[in-house]
């Protein structure tokens, strides 16, 4: 690892500050591909419903690695690198499809079964007794890299590592329970959008774990009491630091709190009311008064419940200073027409134009640009101390520190 040698040293074990070279360094970025995305982690790849029937497939990415996720004839889900063993071309070109019986590379027509095994080579025996592959060429020794898959509550995760723990152990009981809380029923996808962000992927990973910023950057939240730091709630951080779930509980006493006004924080704007309040006409569909739950699974998965706006987000790195965020909005198969309409309206809260999420699209870029020549400086993330523990306040950066704890562990830096 040369990055740490070329740059200011990152004190061992320090997670309450990160050096800005971590968002800028090419060698670090390459190492992340190997040690994080291709390492002992579970990467979210798609929904179980996306590959419902044998032959259904989707193409996506694990880090920057293109992958195919497909339901095999045996009903199992397989994932393998979307790279032909011959000359490295993409095997599947579309976003997905159905009824696939095999995959054939367009370049020289090498063919793969649904498990990613190389099965056919065009002109393997040559033509008219001439050419062809050498007799000792063993197809079973050539093929795209295969990934392990795990399905949990309708979410499909993939890992290149043989050492990754079972998904339940990887998540831990608490995070597992928080996913189950939202995903108990068959889901129905209602929209998919991609947001291209002008920042390193880690800036978004941090942002989504950052409970401190939510009601300060996002005025819409504070004004309409969807969430404020003075509301009830907290943050759970997994043992390894990598996963988190933050939540707010509707607390009736909150209307009297004047802490925002007292501190002169911009988020408070008392006169602002919706002309059509049906946007926030929410129901407690999970029966626990939790209005908002944001959950992450290291390195790049987000499950979001903001009132009745439900979505999964997939964080994909696209170079040092670029990333894509894939949004999948969903409801449930048994949604009533009223609930369906409610979800369509509340989808305004999230996504690239979200009333409470659009700022997250630009704020990472503000950091990326702000630290342009500050590679040897460190961020400060000491709200709530220096630890990464679960807490009952969201005025803490514990879960962001948790991200860096897991990051340093996986990176070995």
């Amino acid at each position, binding site marked *: 690892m040369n990055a740490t040698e070329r740059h200011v040293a990152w004190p061992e074990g320090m997670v309450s500050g990160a050096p800005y070279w971590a968002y800028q360094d090419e060698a670090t970025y390459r190492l992340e591909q190997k040690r994080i995305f291709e390492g002992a982690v579970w990467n979210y790849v798609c929904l179980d419903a996306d590959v419902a029937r044998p032959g259904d497939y989707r193409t996506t990415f694990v880090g920057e690695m293109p992958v195919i996720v497909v339901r095999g004839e045996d009903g199992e889900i397989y994932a393998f690198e979307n790279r032909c063993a011959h000359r490295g071309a993409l095997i599947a070109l579309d*976003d997905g499809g159905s009824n696939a019986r095999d995959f054939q590379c367009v370049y020289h027509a090498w063919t793969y079964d649904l498990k990613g095994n190389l099965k056919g080579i065009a002109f393997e025996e040559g033509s008219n007794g001439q050419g062809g592959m050498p007799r000792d060429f063993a197809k079973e020794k050539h093929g795209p890299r295969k990934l392990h898959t795990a399905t949990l509550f309708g979410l499909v995760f993939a890992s290149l590592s043989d050492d990754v723990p079972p998904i339940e152990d990887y998540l831990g009981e608490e995070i597992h329970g928080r996913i189950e809380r939202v995903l108990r029923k068959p889901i129905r*996808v*209602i*929209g*998919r*959008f*991609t*947001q*291209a*962000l*002008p920042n390193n992927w880690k800036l978004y990973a941090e942002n989504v774990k950052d409970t401190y910023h939510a009601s300060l*950057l996002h*005025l*819409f939240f504070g*004004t309409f009491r969807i969430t404020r730091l003075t509301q009830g709630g907290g943050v759970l951080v997994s043992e390894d630091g990598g996963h988190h779930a933050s939540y707010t509980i509707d607390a009736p006493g909150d209307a009297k709190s004047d802490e925002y006004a007292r501190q002169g924080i911009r988020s408070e*704007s008392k006169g*602002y009311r*919706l*002309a*059509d309040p*049906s*946007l926030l006409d929410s129901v407690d569909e999970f029966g626990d008064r939790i209005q908002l739950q944001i959950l992450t699974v290291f390195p790049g998965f987000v499950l979001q419940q903001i009132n009745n706006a439900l979505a999964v987000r997939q964080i994909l790195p696209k170079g040092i200073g670029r990333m*894509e965020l894939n949004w999948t*909005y969903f409801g449930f198969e048994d949604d009533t027409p009223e609930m*369906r*309409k409610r*979800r*369509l*309206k509340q*989808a*305004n809260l999230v*996504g*690239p*134009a979200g*009333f409470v999420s*659009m*700022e997250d*699209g*630009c*704020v990472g*870029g503000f950091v990326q640009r702000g630290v342009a020549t500050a590679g040897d400086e460190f961020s400060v993330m000491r709200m709530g101390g220096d630890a990464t523990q679960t807490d009952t306040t969201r005025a803490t950066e514990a879960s962001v520190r948790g991200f860096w704890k897991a990051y340093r562990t996986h990176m070995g830096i």
Partner: protein
Amino acid sequence: MGSMGVSAPSLNSRLIELNAAYARAIDDGNFEAWPEFFLEDGLYKLTSADNHAQGMEAGVMYADSRNMLRDRISALRVANIYERQRYRHIVGLPSVLASVGSGVRSETSFLVVRIMRDGTMDVFATGRYLDLIEEDADGNLRFRERIAVCDSNRFDTLVAIPL
């Protein structure tokens, strides 16, 4: 206009005027005028061609009342944080597709360039407006529905200003 008088404008030219006024309001930053192009219970949705083709109902923006559109603009003015930017709409000629009750269905292509405060200009979106247009009580053409279907499913950074 002299002795020849002015012939009643054709439907087509009225649609062209509507689209031009709509684009001009947004591009001039006169966002408060934007909701007024819709009927009281009009629908505006911003989505993509893939979602539209697959029958996915959710949009990047979704409003089923003029008041929701007004809320969009209030949020834009008061709440949301984004870097200063403008749009330039280039709107194509409308194709009238069908008469529906007292209104018409039409389709019009658009191209939107986004101009950032530092001068960066990008093709931000291209697509088509799928419209259901009716006259309001005063005889003005208004949108009962305007579905802005972007050709691409990918949005750069954020969408603050409506398309």
